[in-house]
C-alpha cells in the first residue's frame, strides 16, 4: 500500500506529540533531552517521507497521488470524508514544512537549553508540525480548517510560551511579565477575526455546492453559469482571502505578527516566518481555481499584497528590535507572495492563456507565489535563527546594544549576510529569482502594484542591511549588561565589567548569560544548512523545474542560459540597481556614518514618527475599534439586547404567568358547592351545545 505512506507523515509527528506530552512530561521530567530527540527523529522521518512523496508525485503521470478517502461522518445524504490531496503544491509544502521544522528543532536544542519548559516546548512544536501538515495535505476545506485552527492554537501557545514573563523578567517589570501573554492573546484574536471570513466562505461554498472537497469546488467554479457563477465566486474568494490575510498578517490584520516576536526565537523562525504565516498564501494557492474566476477578488489580493509589502517595509526601516525588523520584513514578503498569486489569478482571469487545461492554468497562476514562499521559508528562517543566535550571545534583541559581533560570531554573521543578500534580492541568490518573477508578472498585469513592489525592493535592501551593519558591524555596545546598568556602561567592553556586574547580568537573564560567544554546534549546523538552501533554492526554477513540480509544463532551458539569460531583460537590472542602492545607503549611514542616521531622522521627522509609531494603528485599533466600536458600540448594544431583549422576554413570560396566576387563583375559593355549581353549569352547557350543534 505505497499510497498510504503520506498518512504516516501526519501520524508520526503526532505520535511525537503524544510521547512528549503524555509520557515524557508527566513521568520522565528529568530526561528532558529525550523530548528533543523524539521530536527531531519524528520530524526527520516525516521529512524523508515528504521527499519520497515529492519524487512519487513528480514521477506520476498526473502529478498527483490517488489517495483513498475515509468516511468520517454520515448524516442522511451528507457524507463528510477525510482524505488527502497529494499533488505538486502539497508535496512542495510538505518538504518545506518538514525541512524547516527539522532545522528549527535541531537549533532549539541549543537555544532552549536549560529552559524549564523544555518538554512543553517540544510537545507544542510537534503538535504544530502535525497541524501544519494536516493543513497542507487535506483535500477538503473542512479538514484544512481543522489544521488551520490547530496551527492558530499552537501559535498562541508558543507565542505565550513564557506566559509567566520573559526569561529573567523581574517582579514589577510590567512589560516583561505580561508582554508574552498579551501578545499571544492579540495574535489569537486578530487571526480569529480573519477566520470568521474563512469559515463563512466555507459554509457559503458548501451551501451552494454541497461539498467541502477542494477539487470538486474548483470544478464547480469552472462551470460557466453554474452555481458559483457571478458574484458568488467573488464573495467566496473574498471570504477565503480574509482568512488568509489574518493568517499571513496582511493589512489591516498585520498587527499581531510584530508582537508575536515575544515567543522564543526558533518559534518565530518556524511559525512566524516559514510555515504558519505562509499558510495564508498556501490557502489562496490551494483555492486558486476559485480566485482565478473572479477578476475582482484577484485584484483585491494583488492590491492588498502590494500595499502590505510597502507598508510593512516602511515600518521595518525604523524598528530597533532586530526581531521586529525581520517580522515586518516577513509581512512585506508575504505581501509579495500575495501580489504573485493575485496577478497570477488576474493573468488567468483576463484570459491570458485560454485553451489550457484547468490544472495547467492553476499551475501557471500559483507557481511564482509558491516559488517565493519556498525561497522565503529558507532565508527568513535563517534570519530568525541568526537573530536567535545573536540574542543567545548578547542577551538582548535591541540593535542599539549590539554591534561588532562579526568578530565574535563568525558563523552567525556569515550565514546572516547570505540570508540578507538573498532577501535583498541580489543575483544569484534565491530571493533574486522569485522576486524578479513577481515583478515581471506584476508589470504585465497590474502596473500600480508593480511600482509598489519596486519601491519595496529598495526599502527591503536598506532595512535588512541596516540590521546587518548595526548588529555585526562597528563596535560592541554592551548587550544586555548595558541595558541593566544604563547608558553609562554602554561604551565599556564586556571584558572590563566587574565580577559583580557580570553576576548581576547573569542573574537578570538566567537562560542566556550575556557572554559573547559563538552559538553551539547544534545551533550553527542548521544555520549552515539553511544558508546553503538560501543560496541555491532559487536555482530550482532556472530550468523551469519548479513549475514542473507544480504540474505545469513549461519549456525548460539549460542552467547556464537560465543563470545569465535573465539579464537580457531590463527589469532585473532595475531591481538590482535599486537593491544595491538600498544596501549602499545602509552602508553609508550605519557602517561608514557618512550620513548621520539621527540627522536623517530629524530631517524626515513626521515620517520617522509615523513609521516608528507603526502608523498609530495599534492605538487606532485599541481606541477606535476596540474601545469605541466594540466596547462602546457593539458590546453595549449586545448588552442592551441581552438585558432588555433576552432577559426581558424571559422576565416578561415569568411576570405574565405570575399575574395570570394572581387573577385565576381567585376562582379557587375552596367552596365545594361552587365547584359543584361549575360542574353542573358545564355539563348543561355541553348538553345544550350538543342539542344545538349536533353530536
Amino acid at each position, binding site marked *: 500500500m505505497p499510497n498510504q505512506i503520506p498518512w504516516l507523515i501526519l501520524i508520526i509527528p503526532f505520535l511525537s506529540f503524544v510521547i512528549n506530552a503524555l509520557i515524557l512530561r508527566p513521568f520522565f521530567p528529568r530526561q528532558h533531552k529525550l523530548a528533543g530527540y523524539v521530536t527531531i527523529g519524528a520530524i526527520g522521518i516525516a521529512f524523508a517521507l515528504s521527499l519520497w512523496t515529492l519524487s512519487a508525485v513528480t514521477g506520476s503521470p498526473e502529478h498527483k497521488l490517488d489517495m483513498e478517502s475515509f468516511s468520517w461522518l454520515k448524516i442522511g445524504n451528507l457524507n463528510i470524508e477525510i482524505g488527502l490531496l497529494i499533488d505538486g503544491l502539497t508535496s512542495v509544502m510538505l518538504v518545506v514544512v518538514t525541512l524547516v521544522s527539522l532545522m528549527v528543532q535541531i537549533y532549539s536544542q541549543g537555544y532552549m537549553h536549560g529552559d524549564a519548559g523544555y518538554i512543553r516546548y517540544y510537545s507544542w512544536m510537534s503538535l504544530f508540525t502535525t497541524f501544519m501538515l494536516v493543513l497542507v495535505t487535506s483535500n477538503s476545506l473542512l479538514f484544512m480548517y481543522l489544521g488551520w485552527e490547530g496551527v492558530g492554537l499552537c501559535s498562541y501557545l508558543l507565542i505565550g510560551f513564557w506566559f509567566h514573563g520573559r526569561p529573567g523578567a523581574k517582579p514589577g517589570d510590567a512589560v516583561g511579565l505580561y508582554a508574552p501573554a498579551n501578545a499571544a492573546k492579540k495574535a489569537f484574536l486578530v487571526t480569529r477575526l480573519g477566520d470568521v471570513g474563512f469559515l463563512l466562505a466555507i459554509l457559503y461554498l458548501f451551501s451552494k455546492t454541497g461539498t467541502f472537497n477542494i477539487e470538486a469546488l474548483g470544478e464547480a467554479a469552472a462551470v460557466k453559469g453554474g452555481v458559483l457563477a457571478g458574484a458568488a465566486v467573488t464573495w467566496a474568494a473574498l471570504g477565503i482571502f480574509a482568512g488568509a490575510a489574518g493568517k499571513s498578517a496582511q493589512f489591516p490584520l498585520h498587527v499581531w505578527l510584530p508582537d508575536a516576536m515575544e515567543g522564543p526565537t526558533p518559534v518565530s523562525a518556524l511559525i512566524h516566518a516559514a510555515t504558519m504565516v505562509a499558510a495564508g498564501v498556501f490557502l489562496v494557492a490551494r483555492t486558486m481555481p476559485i480566485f482565478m474566476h473572479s477578476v475582482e477578488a484577484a485584484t483585491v489580493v494583488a492590491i492588498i499584497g502590494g500595499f502590505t509589502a510597502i507598508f510593512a517595509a516602511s515600518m521595518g526601516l525604523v524598528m530597533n528590535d532586530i526581531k521586529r525588523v525581520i517580522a515586518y520584513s516577513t509581512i512585506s514578503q508575504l505581501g509579495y507572495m500575495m501580489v504573485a498569486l493575485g496577478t497570477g489569478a488576474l493573468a488567468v482571469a483576463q484570459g491570458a492563456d485560454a485553451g489550457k487545461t484547468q490544472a495547467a492554468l492553476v499551475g501557471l497562476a500559483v507557481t511564482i507565489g509558491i516559488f517565493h514562499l519556498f525561497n522565503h521559508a529558507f532565508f527568513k528562517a535563517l534570519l530568525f535563527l541568526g537573530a536567535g543566535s545573536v540574542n543567545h550571545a548578547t542577551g538582548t534583541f535591541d540593535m542599539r546594544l549590539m554591534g561588532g559581533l562579526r568578530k565574535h560570531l563568525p558563523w552567525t554573521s556569515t550565514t546572516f549576510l547570505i540570508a540578507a543578500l538573498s532577501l535583498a534580492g541580489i543575483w544569484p541568490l534565491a530571493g533574486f529569482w522569485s522576486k524578479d518573477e513577481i515583478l515581471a508578472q506584476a508589470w504585465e498585469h497590474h502596473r500600480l502594484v508593480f511600482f509598489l513592489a519596486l519601491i519595496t525592493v529598495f526599502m527591503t535592501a536598506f532595512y535588512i542591511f541596516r540590521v546587518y551593519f548595526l548588529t555585526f558591524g562597528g563596535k560592541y555596545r554592551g548587550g544586555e549588561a548595558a541595558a541593566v546598568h544604563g547608558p553609562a556602561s554602554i561604551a565599556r567592553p564586556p571584558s572590563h565589567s566587574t565580577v559583580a556586574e557580570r553576576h548581576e547580568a547573569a542573574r537578570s537573564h538566567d537562560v542566556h548569560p550575556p557572554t559573547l560567544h559563538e552559538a553551539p554546534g547544534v545551533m550553527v549546523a542548521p544555520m549552515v544548512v539553511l544558508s546553503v538552501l538560501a543560496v541555491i533554492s532559487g536555482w530550482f526554477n532556472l530550468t523551469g523545474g519548479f513549475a514542473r513540480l507544480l504540474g505545469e509544463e513549461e519549456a525548460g532551458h539549460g542552467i547556464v542560459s537560465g543563470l545569465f539569460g535573465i539579464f537580457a531583460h531590463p527589469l532585473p537590472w532595475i531591481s538590482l540597481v535599486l537593491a544595491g542602492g538600498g544596501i549602499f545607503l545602509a552602508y553609508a549611514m550605519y557602517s561608514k556614518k557618512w550620513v548621520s542616521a539621527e540627522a536623517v531622522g530629524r530631517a524626515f521627522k513626521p515620517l520617522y514618527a509615523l513609521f516608528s509609531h507603526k502608523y498609530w494603528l495599534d492605538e487606532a485599533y485599541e481606541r477606535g475599534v476596540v474601545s469605541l466600536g466594540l466596547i462602546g458600540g457593539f458590546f453595549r448594544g449586545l448588552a442592551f439586547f441581552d438585558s432588555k431583549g433576552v432577559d426581558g422576554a424571559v422576565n416578561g413570560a415569568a411576570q405574565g404567568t405570575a399575574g395570570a396566576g394572581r387573577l385565576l*387563583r381567585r376562582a*379557587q*375559593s*375552596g*367552596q*365545594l*358547592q361552587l365547584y*359543584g*355549581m361549575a360542574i*353542573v353549569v358545564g355539563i348543561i352547557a355541553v348538553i345544550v351545545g350538543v342539542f344545538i350543534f349536533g353530536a
Partner: protein
Amino acid sequence: MVGLQHYIILSAVLFCIGLYGALAKRNAVIILMSIEIMLNAANVALVAFSRYVTPQLLTGQIFAVFVMTVAAAEVAVGLAIIIALYRQKEKVDVGEVDLMKW
C-alpha cells in the same frame, strides 16, 4: 297508564331536588342526604329502563343493587367525615370548610 316517561320524569325531578340540595344547603348532613336522593333518582331511571327497554335482561336492576351498595359505603365514609369535621369545628356548615383554597 303509567309509561316509561313517567318514571323518567320522576327520576329527573328527584335528581333536580337532590342537586339543588347538594349545591344550595349549608348543612353537611343535608348535603349527604341530597346526594343519596340523586343516587336514587339514578336508580329509578336504571330500573325503569331495564323494565321497559330490555325486559329479558336484568342488567339495569342488578346495577341498581350495586348502586345501593356503593351508596351505603359512601354514606358511611361521608358521615365519618362529617363527624370528624364536627369535632374540629363544632358545627357542620360546609361554608366554613374552605381550607383547600390557595
